[in-house]
């Protein structure tokens, strides 16, 4: 019994001697009077700077609360407020701390400054923990900042315990209660998501993309062949630094993939990159349009659009007032057909709180119409950021500080179906974590995503990373044998069935290729109409690159599409794609050689459809016929022969008659639309001129066609 008391006494002595804060007083440092004095002086200097910084910090917090009606959600919300004074405080405080590491206050201050400046540095948490152990009452708010640091370090249980402790220590007002309640919920989310991590590979994109300087805001084309992003490097246009944070001004960089590898990134020309901030705000799926964020004076930050012409980008043009306001607009994302533009704005009018996601529709004049808030299913009372519309036409990725975040911004996915957005789904850990996770874009295939992070092991500051989704853990396959048939010992493998990947395959077709002149093979700039054959509507128009002739069109599944490639002086070229709703992600390469308008040129009108076994033109042929009419009107001297062909099914006589009637139907249609009959000849060829085999369905389909040939010019 006596022995136990002694043990207890020794333990208590050790605890108190270990856990008690040691003040900067001479009695605590016998024989070190001068050193203590010097350390005390440094402490005073450090505290002076800290107090000035802290006042700025607290003022900012009050202002934030007043503006946003809630406390900051992310540590980045504090925007490094007080940082200049905090930076000045660090060196003297470090000297004092080195002399007396067991002072609660100096550890608290260093921990607090670390929270503002470098919260992910393990030393920051150590300072705050040490301070708390030395004197849990050194400052009233120490439990709060310690809890937040635990949260930022994914120590969920400890964070929850400290947040709860703070609620008991401090008599919180309603806003503070709301703040703590949210943060506890975030920690609970973090704990749950961390327990079931999403299986991904995270790869740094390497030195051709990343550098010692910050790189962020990636935007990729649907086929992952081109990446544009923002960087703050020493080769920035004009070579200047922003006084605000002493970093080089932002510029936009681009890299293309060759042989599966990213090539060294290039700075875009001065058309895009000015001497001030120029950041990537988004890119179209085909990479032909780039959106730039610029922070000009008094406009709160706006978005500009530039188009790739040949090898260079044109001078960016500011998006209209339906998008850009006096408030802050930044990331934008175009829908696959270019008819909707999703963007972020922190404007007050129509906001549900903080920055929200809005959408504009292209009007009949080709202008962006009024902005519409996406509503409470997507937007929360907290901020949303980094919107990205997947080229499948219905899946949106965005970041939000609301919903079931783990802290700060988390990336979510929502799908537009049956006229409404689905409940946003947190992409989970480790894509998301307790810090801000924002500006996440995903490839057309849906198997890879790109984002920026300042995680350790990079080339310096923020780098661009690729996430490869692995889906659920792949189950190994065992060998086994059974002798199922008694009379015939027939070994069969006893295979274990693999479950499907959780990541759904994007229901998307990417059509890309090069448009050239059929005679000289030179690349051509041409316009490409994308037609919804079911609705008989041109839903989007794209252009091939004037220098390379390259084009890329994304076609979400579930529709029957036609495309028409056109250029003045050339015959148009049409193609038809029927993509059922279950069509998986696929890429088609379709190079198109346009033929000049000259006698003898023949093209197949692939988007003229007839009723089965009849000569009645189906309504979905209207767009193709309109193109033909325009061609004839634009070239009033040309005369054409319209030839119709069948496959070999049915008798020769029947096929000849059917084709003759079909060609006459087309000619009659054209005459009805005002084309002179003298310019048109109808000719039915039946099955006499096949261009493919009649042995297969696809061959027969190719043989059933309507062609026109220029006979006079």
């Amino acid at each position, binding site marked *: 019994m006596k022995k136990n008391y002694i043990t207890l006494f020794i333990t208590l002595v050790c605890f108190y001697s270990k856990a008690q804060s040691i003040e900067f007083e001479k009695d605590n440092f016998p024989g070190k009077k001068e050193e203590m004095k010097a350390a005390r002086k440094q402490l005073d200097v450090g505290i002076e700077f800290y107090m000035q910084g802290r006042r700025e910090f607290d003022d900012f917090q009050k202002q934030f609360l007043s503006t946003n009606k809630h406390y900051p959600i992310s540590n980045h919300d504090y925007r490094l407020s007080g940082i200049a004074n905090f930076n000045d405080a660090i060196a003297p405080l470090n000297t004092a701390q080195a002399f007396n590491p067991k002072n609660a206050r100096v550890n608290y201050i260093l921990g607090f400054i670390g929270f503002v400046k470098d919260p992910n540095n393990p030393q920051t948490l150590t300072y705050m923990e040490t301070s708390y152990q030395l004197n849990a009452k050194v400052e009233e708010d120490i439990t709060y900042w310690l809890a937040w640091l635990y949260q930022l370090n994914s120590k969920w249980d400890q964070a929850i315990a400290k947040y709860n402790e703070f609620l008991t220590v401090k008599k919180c007002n309603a806003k503070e209660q709301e703040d703590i309640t949210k943060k506890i919920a975030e920690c609970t989310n973090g704990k749950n998501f961390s327990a079931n991590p999403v299986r991904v590979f995270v790869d740094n994109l390497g030195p051709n993309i990343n550098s010692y300087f910050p790189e962020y805001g990636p935007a990729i084309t649907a086929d992952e062949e081109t990446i544009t992003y923002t960087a703050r490097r020493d080769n920035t246009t004009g070579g200047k630094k922003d006084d605000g944070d002493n970093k080089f001004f932002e510029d936009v960089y681009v890299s293309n993939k060759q042989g599966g590898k990213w090539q060294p990134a290039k700075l875009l020309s001065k058309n895009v990159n000015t001497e001030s901030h120029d950041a990537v705000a988004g890119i179209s799926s085909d990479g032909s349009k780039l959106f730039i964020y610029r922070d000009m004076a008094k406009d709160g930050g706006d978005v500009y659009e530039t188009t790739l012409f040949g090898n260079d980008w044109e001078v960016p043009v500011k998006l209209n007032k339906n998008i850009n306001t006096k408030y802050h607009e930044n990331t934008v994302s175009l829908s696959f057909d270019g008819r909707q533009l999703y963007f972020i704005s922190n404007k007050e009018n129509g906001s549900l709180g903080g920055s929200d996601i809005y959408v504009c529709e292209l009007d009949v004049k080709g202008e962006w119409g009024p902005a519409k808030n996406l509503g409470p299913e997507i937007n929360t009372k907290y901020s949303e950021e980094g919107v990205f519309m997947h080229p499948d036409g219905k899946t949106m990725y965005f970041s939000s500080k609301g919903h079931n975040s783990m802290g700060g911004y988390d990336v979510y996915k929502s799908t537009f179906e049956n006229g409404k957005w689905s409940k946003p789904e947190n992409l989970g850990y480790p894509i998301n974590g307790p810090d801000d996770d924002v500006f996440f874009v995903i490839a057309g295939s849906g198997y890879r995503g790109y984002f920026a992070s300042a995680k350790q092991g990079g080339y310096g500051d923020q780098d661009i990373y690729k996430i490869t989704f692995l889906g659920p853990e*792949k189950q190994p396959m065992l060998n086994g044998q059974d002798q199922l048939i*008694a009379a015939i010992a027939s070994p069969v493998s006893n*295979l274990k069935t693999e479950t499907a990947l959780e990541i759904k395959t994007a229901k998307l077709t990417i059509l890309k290729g090069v448009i050239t002149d059929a005679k000289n093979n030179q690349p051509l700039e041409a316009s490409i109409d994308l037609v919804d054959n079911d609705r008989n509507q041109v839903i989007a128009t794209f252009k091939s690159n004037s220098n390379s002739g390259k084009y890329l069109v994304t076609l979400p599944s579930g529709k029957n599409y036609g495309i028409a490639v056109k250029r003045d002086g050339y015959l148009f070229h049409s193609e038809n794609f029927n993509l059922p709703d279950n069509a998986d992600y696929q890429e088609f390469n379709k190079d198109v050689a346009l033929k000049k308008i000259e006698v003898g040129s023949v093209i197949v009108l692939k988007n003229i459809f007839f009723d089965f076994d009849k000569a009645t033109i189906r309504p979905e042929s209207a767009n193709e016929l309109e193109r033909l009419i325009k061609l004839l009107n634009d070239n009033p001297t040309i005369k054409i022969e319209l030839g119709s062909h069948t496959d070999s099914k049915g008798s020769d006589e029947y096929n000849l008659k059917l084709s003759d009637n079909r060609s006459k139907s087309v000619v009659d249609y054209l005459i009805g639309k005002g084309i002179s009959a003298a310019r048109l000849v109808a000719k039915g060829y039946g099955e006499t001129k096949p261009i493919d085999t009649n042995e297969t369905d696809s061959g027969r389909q190719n043989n059933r066609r309507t062609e026109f040939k220029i006979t006079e010019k």
Partner: protein
Amino acid sequence: MKNKLLLLALICCAYLNAQDTVKVATNLSPDQQAELDYNNGLAALTKKEFLPAVDLFTKCLAVKPTFDKALSNRAIAYVQLKNTDAAIADINAALKINASADTYFNKALIFMNLNKKDSQNVALDNCLKQNPNHAEANYYKGLSNYEVGDYDKAIDCYSKSISTNPNYVYAYNDRASAKRAKKDYPGAITDYEKAIIIDSKLTFVHNNLGSCYRLNKNYDKAVAAYTKALETDQNYLTALINRGAANFDNGKLPAAQNDFEAVLKKDPQNSFAYNNLASIAIKSKDYKKAKDLAGKAIDLDAKNGPAYYNRGIARQMLREEEASCADWKKAVELGLENAKLFVSTNCD
């Protein structure tokens, strides 16, 4: 392997259906001598002395050329001597004399040995026309349906066979297998258990029962059935491999490892055991070890699809993406449909 076993099946059935012996008098007339030759031929056939059997049947037929039983039995001997033309000629001659169900059945077995499925089925149908309750013909008709995936018809045929011969243990086993193919695991288990009641020494039936329990996710019973199979034949490595797999499925990785390692002690060249050990390594996230073990399995059996599949998984996790895709593509080539998903979602 399959051909050898077919041959074995043919011999077994041939003995079952070899034409009856003839009673012979003491003072032998030519006809009686012919009958004695027939009996001696049958005895030689039973002792697998096929050449003497052919000679004796031929002597008999020289005296009694329309003796259908001698023709039929000589046909069986010819089959064993791989003289199939002579066998078919004899069997057709026998059928001309007497179109009996058993002769048709023997003809079916000859075509089965020649892997002529259509002719085999015609002969079986003819047999069943003569005797719809012919247990063996119904059994093989069931087998024929099983092989083309018509499990309902197979079950029906096996049931007819069983109704004629309630102790037809093979028919129970095969009907169970057909039910298993239809995912009727309880029905399959019942039939396998009936087969075991009839003959508890049939190792492969215990093994099949274990696999059925495994498919039904009843791993403890699966392990018990495989253990029973090993008790009837301790060298039946198939059951040891399967028991390891059941332990693996049940999350008992150390027990599974013991089983696979026990297989390798008895058969160090066992590709399956190496691949299954690779599966354990994958589960344990030891991808380097998994890659090596699956590689060893492939070295031993270049057609081991699951080993390519597993090595692909290990290589992916080791960030050898191109190599992992090559492995999965090989697995697809070897008929593993599951690997297609990996190729389409992980490989450019």
